[in-house]
């Protein structure tokens, strides 16, 4: 090149050395951690904040999810926090002044049996009562929205209809993380990568700092946001959590012309599919059953989800798999998250999002920042306390959440 090397584009954030202490340390630099730091600074004026990330920013589940955004959950508690999140998604590009490619292309949740139909219609009514857009579609209407779905009655699990949430969609996950990181950094938050938390400093029942691979850092409050590794970090404070970490796999096809106009999820056949902006078909399904921290799963799980996709979309038969991968998701017994206080003063919990964390990114960042700033839960995350496993007030989204886990 005649002009020599092209200048590197401007960095989106600083890469500071850790300070001796912070008012708040967020453990985990994924989407949730970055959003929490941003709203701590933006909504609560708490800017002496560090986000500690053991690898690189947003390199865990934020880089591995299938980017589906929706709020059509059955229970009021879930609808509350996910719809809050969806409303924030709708203004996020403007809020963060960064393109996140949020595309409200809708989501279809297919019904394949009479019981599916009943559950789905019930969920549509529940959604509407909560002010969430939801419609019940018959098979012909499903094909109008998504012409490539096979609605033939001759298949093993015919499509009897679907719920439709038009405001649902997808976003570009990396851009979301970068947008939050840049905005948090601009407000004074230190984003510290390559900094693994190895211990929690606790004195008189109160957290006072964290030990890391880059030294000990003092902290007034510590907000865990470590997804699949939360059990490991919480254990450092002697806290047991009702979490099991599992691999969750996903895959993409080679690039195709635009063929798939929406997001399709099927619980019974069990796959969820959308088409990324760039053109890959993006698919995911259920977790590998066993506990695992290895960020990979078994290939027969991938085979099963591709078989499911072919059942619904026969024309995918000629698409090639480009790559598959796994992330580590932390699953709770009721398939709802834990967001709130812990038994250690100043130590806060945000975990258990299982397979559904990406869509919640803005909403949980907002509510978790409130929880950390005020020392008590935001009304929208109050139902998701750890105590619910003792009181029995579970938010049972297994199955009800329109997707199996």
């Amino acid at each position: 090149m005649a002009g020599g090397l092209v200048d590197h584009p401007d960095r989106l954030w600083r890469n500071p050395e850790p300070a001796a202490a912070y008012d708040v340390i967020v453990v985990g630099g994924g989407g949730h951690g970055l959003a929490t730091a941003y709203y701590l600074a933006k909504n609560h004026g708490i800017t002496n904040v560090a986000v500690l990330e053991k690898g690189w920013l947003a390199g865990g589940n934020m880089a591995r999810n299938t980017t589906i955004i929706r709020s059509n959950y059955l229970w009021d508690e879930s609808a509350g926090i996910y719809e809050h999140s969806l409303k924030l998604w709708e203004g996020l590009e403007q809020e963060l002044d960064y393109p996140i490619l949020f595309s409200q292309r809708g989501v279809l949740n297919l019904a394949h049996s009479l019981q599916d139909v009943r559950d789905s219609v019930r969920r549509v009514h529940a959604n509407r009562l909560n002010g969430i857009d939801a419609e019940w579609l018959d098979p012909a209407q499903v094909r109008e929205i998504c012409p490539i779905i096979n609605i033939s009655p001759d298949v093993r699990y015919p499509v009897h209809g679907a719920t439709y949430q038009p405001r649902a969609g997808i976003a570009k996950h990396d851009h979301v993380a970068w947008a939050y990181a840049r905005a948090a950094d601009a407000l004074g938050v230190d984003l510290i990568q390559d900094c693994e938390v190895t211990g929690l400093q606790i004195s008189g029942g109160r957290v006072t700092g964290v030990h890391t691979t880059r030294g000990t850092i003092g902290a007034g409050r510590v907000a865990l946001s470590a997804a699949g590794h939360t059990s490991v970090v919480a254990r450092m404070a002697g806290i047991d959590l009702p979490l099991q970490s599992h691999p969750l796999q996903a895959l993409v096809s080679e690039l195709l012309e635009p063929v798939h106009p929406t997001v399709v999820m099927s619980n019974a056949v069990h796959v969820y599919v959308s088409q990324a902006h760039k053109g890959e078909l993006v698919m995911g399904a259920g977790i590998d059953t066993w506990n695992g921290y290895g960020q990979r799963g078994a290939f027969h799980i991938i085979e099963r989800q591709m078989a499911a996709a072919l059942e619904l979309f026969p024309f995918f038969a000629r698409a090639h798999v480009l790559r598959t991968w796994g992330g580590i998701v932390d699953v709770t017994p009721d398939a709802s998250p834990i967001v709130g206080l812990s038994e250690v003063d100043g130590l806060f919990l945000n975990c258990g999002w299982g397979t559904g964390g990406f869509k919640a990114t803005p909403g949980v960042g907002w509510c978790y920042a409130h929880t950390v700033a005020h020392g008590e839960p935001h009304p929208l995350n109050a139902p998701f306390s750890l105590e619910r496993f003792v009181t029995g007030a579970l938010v049972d989204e297994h199955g009800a959440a329109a997707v199996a886990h």
Partner: protein
Amino acid sequence: MMLIPCPWCGPRDESEFHYGGQAGVAYPAEPDALSDSEWAKYLFFRENPKGPFRERWSHSAGCRRWFSLVRDTVTNEVLR
């Protein structure tokens, strides 16, 4: 796909097995004496280690018997 050593049938593909989670979770000896939080621990809390984990498997597509083994949850190596 893991190769799982069934004590009775030998090493078989993971897809022949059903997972049972943490091994050695005993039913409370005195259920009536348990507090709510003790019940919560028994019902909902299981170990979730990164590393060696003693867990239950059932050879559901083979001899259909349950057994326990220790597996490393990072490498998937069966340790014993």
